């Protein structure tokens, strides 16, 4: 792919937008096409520019980043959540809302560029923290009569991959550790992402709230 990835930055802090833009502007493979500061402008910008990847803040005036994904309805556009919030609820909520990955704002420029490329190619981006949340969310034994059994649990392999990611392994290292190809690792990650988004376990939505009370 020779065309630069067209990126839209959505964040309500102008200073942060400027910082990300400055960090990305020096790179040939990225083209920042627009910025937006709230749900309304973000939806308009997504419709107007049809970016490849939207860097989406989780906390956004007008209903949060989830609202942007819900309202813009552009199936081609991929979202990468970028937030200062580590709250499990927000992270899982955003992923379930359709984001292909989640990174915190302290991510370095190089890592961000790699994450953007990965999301553009349709792969999932899991930070160690997100992997931890996923393991937590799928941890409980499943007593509830599940509508779709397969979607409501992780396979052993997927669990293994998630654990390695949570331990700080890069995709390449995960592949080496499990004697599988990077492509296979990416497939596992995409499957986990899909399960997270489609799983019908009703606990999953409540999990973040209730996990201290169970």
């Amino acid at each position, binding site marked *: 792919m020779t065309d630069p990835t067209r990126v839209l930055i959505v964040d*309500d802090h102008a200073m942060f937008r400027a910082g990300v833009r400055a960090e990305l502007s020096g790179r040939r493979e990225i083209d920042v096409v627009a910025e937006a500061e709230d749900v309304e402008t973000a939806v308009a910008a997504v419709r107007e520019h049809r970016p490849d990847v939207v860097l989406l803040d*989780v*906390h*956004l*005036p*007008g*209903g*949060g980043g*989830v*609202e942007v994904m819900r309202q813009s309805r552009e199936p081609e556009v991929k979202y990468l959540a970028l937030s*200062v*919030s*580590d*709250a499990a*609820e*927000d992270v899982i*909520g955003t992923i379930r*809302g359709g984001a292909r990955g989640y990174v915190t704002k*302290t991510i370095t420029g190089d890592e961000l560029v790699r994450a953007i490329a990965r999301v553009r190619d349709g792969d999932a981006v899991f930070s*160690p*923290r997100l*992997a*931890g949340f996923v*393991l*937590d969310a799928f*941890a*409980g034994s499943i007593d*509830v*009569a599940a509508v779709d059994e397969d979607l409501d649990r992780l396979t052993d392999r997927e669990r293994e991959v998630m*654990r390695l990611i*949570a*331990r*700080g*392994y890069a995709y390449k290292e995960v592949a080496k550790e499990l004697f599988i190809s990077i492509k296979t690792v990416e497939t596992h990650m995409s499957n986990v992402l899909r399960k997270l988004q489609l799983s019908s376990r009703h606990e999953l939505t409540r999990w973040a709230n209730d996990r*201290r*009370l*169970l």
Partner: protein
Amino acid sequence: MSTTTPHEIRRATRDTQQLIIGGVASGLARHLGLPVVWVRAAFLVASVLGGVGIAYYAGLWLLLPTDSRFASDAPGLASATRTGKRPRTGRRITDVGPAVALAALGIGLLFAVEAVVGQGAVFWPLMIGLGGIALLWRQADEAQRERWLDSTGRLDPVRAIFGSGGWASYARVAAGLVLIVVALGLFSVRKGSFSVAGEVLVAALLGIVGLAIVIGPWVHRLAADLASERAERVRSQERADMAAHLHDSVLQTLALIQKNSGDSATVSKLARAQERDLRSWLYDDPAPADTTLIGELKSIGAEADEAHGVVVDVVSVGDAVLTEQLRPLVLATREAVNNAARHAGTARVDVYAEVSARRAEVFVRDRGQGFDPGTIATDRQGVRGSIIDRMQRHGGTAEVRTAPGEGTEVRLSMPISQEENHD
């Protein structure tokens, strides 16, 4: 994880997120751990069989507190919610389907029962009256929820009834009142065979009862609100103190950063320490740090960061109360983290902890220079004594995986005995 967190008293609450009428059924289902459809079905069946279900439902509605008490979110999240930066959790459409089906079934059964028994005389006024009361109580709920979100703190009688208004609240109150009046009217018409005096008496009595029913929920909840409001005042004062402390510390940090602006290492260390401080206050669970395993691991990470200027990212799944049994695991982790921070020559250490009912595992990983385990002198305490031997002495295991240029990973595992957990 389920078996390892400290016990809290669980109270049943009404569910204000996934409610159909008053959230009693879904709240009860959550409390009892049953599928919500079962509970709803049980209420409906009980309602058909002589109306016991309706009585139970109404009673529970009156007595159960709502779950939308003052949200105990961390302040950053609570603030983001208030300012509309997070999605509001609304009712999900999928939940309505079964409820509609159940309602249709219930109404059908009601007709069937009526056709067989032929109790129309009392039945319809009763149903209409109950519908009216349900609407009014529902509005009392809305108004109460508004009051929780209202920061002005004054209790305005109009607001107490209508909340912040809106056609839905007015319609609910009006429709509720109309339904009750219609029910009373129907009732007295059916009872027209009584003497006029008796009719007036009945009407007056019904009026009083109706009034009590209408006002009852508000009075009851008002009393409950007042008690919680007092608690909240105490808490918000604590928060204000905390916020003042934090702002103060941010100012100090900014001052230090200005002074050290030439020294990038110091600046980034200061910024990171402050970031950690703020982040944990804004977004973390307000769990006390030193009483749980994860809390302790996080403070180890913070210590190492301050001492060596290395980012220590602690990711956890589950948690456990920090017992004596887990202490060696904590100490070994501290040693491993400090080793990585001192010797690996990298700016980042990943700590991953997984606590299940049976064991606690901690992985400490860095992408630094690594070392050849064979070349470590036997008299060096670090790895052998503080990590491997310590873990083995206390019934755990430790494994160090490393090679020059490959980074290092220390894997620690400690079994958790069940008896110690359940006290």
